[in-house]
């Protein structure tokens, strides 16, 4: 069945069920308000209706169109377009979710009412908040939202900054230097900065062969680092640092490239990779080790929970939102759940896949709780595919359970094996592309 036929069939099926429409006007089964129409919020709304069509589910989201962050670095190398990142909310509407384009401004936790900028007062039995991240531009001297929007984009929440960065990279002078300043932990999409470096190294090799990518990093390592560096070694002339080279060489043969020929350099934390200051006018970035003259800078600042979390009083002094692990109930406000990047979730990374499985656990917990049944045993998963090149896929894959009150990984192997076959590596890249579509469908359709 062609994809659009499937979607039409889904729509027809949902609309042809009068009971489902009637149920929306009844509040007997319960009212759930979901704030934030990203991966976490959209998945919650969809699965609440799947689990109990009689629930009244309202999704509050400030933008009528979602720009998906996952896969958005592929705009930079021209592999996809800004338009292709856009996802609407009609799929959720067809499932009976009431989508309200509005901004949440406050909550009355005693009365259980959410207030919006549009003057709405939405009563709820349960409130689910999926606020995403806020980029802390001001944490880096010389950086600000205004600078990010005009000259040194972060592109970590996709939108105009992503388009600006793509334009800058395409126009970069021959042989120029592209600096990616990676953020400190914890942050959204742990393999993301390194995948972005790889995709641009690949693009430069074809279109600007003497150009270089330099990653300035406050950290000493990153998730998928060994497999990513092996890919960089095979594709872009990268020589991994000695400690990594030793580990990788136990399973795979590393090429030894001549110094100065690599398309990627990684200035790690122990080498002074932490960014101290930005001079956006001069396009200079000062790290602990050196001041780098760049042609294009992608500065990804530290992050905290999205502004909504602070507005509603859900974040603690770390900037993130503490929750009960079993059902992601806020420990700060009753009858409120916080999911996705904003939540403190132990071993789970801040990823769309994590938010998606957290949403399903929360949706089920809410349905059971409203029906007076006990909370079910949770299980979560995360898979992050990442590309070391457009035909070179790698990943981290984890299954999580609740153990001793913490979210704990239960599988042992997590990464693409260092001795993976060329077929496995190619399949990884193909699955990464397929995942972008199947995931969007599971969240929004």
């Amino acid at each position: 069945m062609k994809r659009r036929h499937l979607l039409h069939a889904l729509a027809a099926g949902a609309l042809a069920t009068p009971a489902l429409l009637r149920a929306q006007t009844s509040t007997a089964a319960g009212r759930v308000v979901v704030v934030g129409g990203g991966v976490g919020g959209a998945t919650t709304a969809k699965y609440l209706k799947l689990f109990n069509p009689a629930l009244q589910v309202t999704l509050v989201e400030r933008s009528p169109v979602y720009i998906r962050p996952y896969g958005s670095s592929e705009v930079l190398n021209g592999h996809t377009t800004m338009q292709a990142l856009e996802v609407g909310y009609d799929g959720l509407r067809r499932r009976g979710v009431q989508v309200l384009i509005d901004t949440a401004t406050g909550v009355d936790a005693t009365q259980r009412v959410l207030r919006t900028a549009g003057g709405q007062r939405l009563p709820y039995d349960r409130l689910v908040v999926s606020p995403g991240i806020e980029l802390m531009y001001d944490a880096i001297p010389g950086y600000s939202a205004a600078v990010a929007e005009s000259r040194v984009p972060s592109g970590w929440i996709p939108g105009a900054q992503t388009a600006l960065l793509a334009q800058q990279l395409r126009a970069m002078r021959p042989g120029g230097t592209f600096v990616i300043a990676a953020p400190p932990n914890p942050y959204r999409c742990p393999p993301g900065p390194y995948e972005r470096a790889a995709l641009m190294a690949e693009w430069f090799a074809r279109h600007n062969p003497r150009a270089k990518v330099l990653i300035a990093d406050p950290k000493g390592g990153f998730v998928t680092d060994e497999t990513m560096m092996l890919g960089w070694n095979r594709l872009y002339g990268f020589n991994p640092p000695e400690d990594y080279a030793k580990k990788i060489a136990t399973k795979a043969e590393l090429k030894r490239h001549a110094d100065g020929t690599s398309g990627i350099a990684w200035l790690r934390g122990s080498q002074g990779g932490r960014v101290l200051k930005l001079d956006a006018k001069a396009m200079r970035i000062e790290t602990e080790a050196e001041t780098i003259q760049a042609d294009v800078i992608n500065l990804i600042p530290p992050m905290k929970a999205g502004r909504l979390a602070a507005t509603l009083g859900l974040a603690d002094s770390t900037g993130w939102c503490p929750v009960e692990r079993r059902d992601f109930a806020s420990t700060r406000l009753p009858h409120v759940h916080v999911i996705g990047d904003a939540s403190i979730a132990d071993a789970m990374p801040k990823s769309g896949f994590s938010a998606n499985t957290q949403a399903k656990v929360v949706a089920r917990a809410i349905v059971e709780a409203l029906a007076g049944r006990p909370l079910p045993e949770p299980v979560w998963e995360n898979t992050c595919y990442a590309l070391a090149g457009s035909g070179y896929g790698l990943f981290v894959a984890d299954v999580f359970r609740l153990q001793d009150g913490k979210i704990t990984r239960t599988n042992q192997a997590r990464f693409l094996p260092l001795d993976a076959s060329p077929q496995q590596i190619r399949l990884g890249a193909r699955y990464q592309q397929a995942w972008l579509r199947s995931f969007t469908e599971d969240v929004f359709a």
Partner: protein
Amino acid sequence: MNPPQTPSRRPRPIWVLAAASVLLAAGSWLGLAPSQAEAPSPATPPLVLVPAAAAASHAAASGEAMAHTCAACHGTNGQLGDEAFVPLAGLPHTQFVRTMQQFRSGERPSTLMGHVAQGFSDADLLAMGRFFEAIPPLPPPETPR
């Protein structure tokens, strides 16, 4: 065509089954009773469930809850249209369990399913397999691609 829906049966029987399986696995029980595992065809060896090494310092989750962790790639409720992954809806549970066991042991090569399979015990796999088996698959594509 109906929209994909959670099967109408309550999740509780699955928990009970999963919990019972864990208890049985902890004892001397080695295999699923043939009556439970469908009569195997001559070409199909009987489904043998042994306690996985990783099984269970954690409590049993329902087959449904575990199955929804597959949906990001394999489709909501395992129903997937035109995509590169295997749709799981309607798959005989014996096939689901055996395939996942083979991924887990490395007998069958994979990209990442072997890693994911390590997170599930045999009882988990059986509970998930029964969930997916009960869901109707989407009709096949109208035109070959």
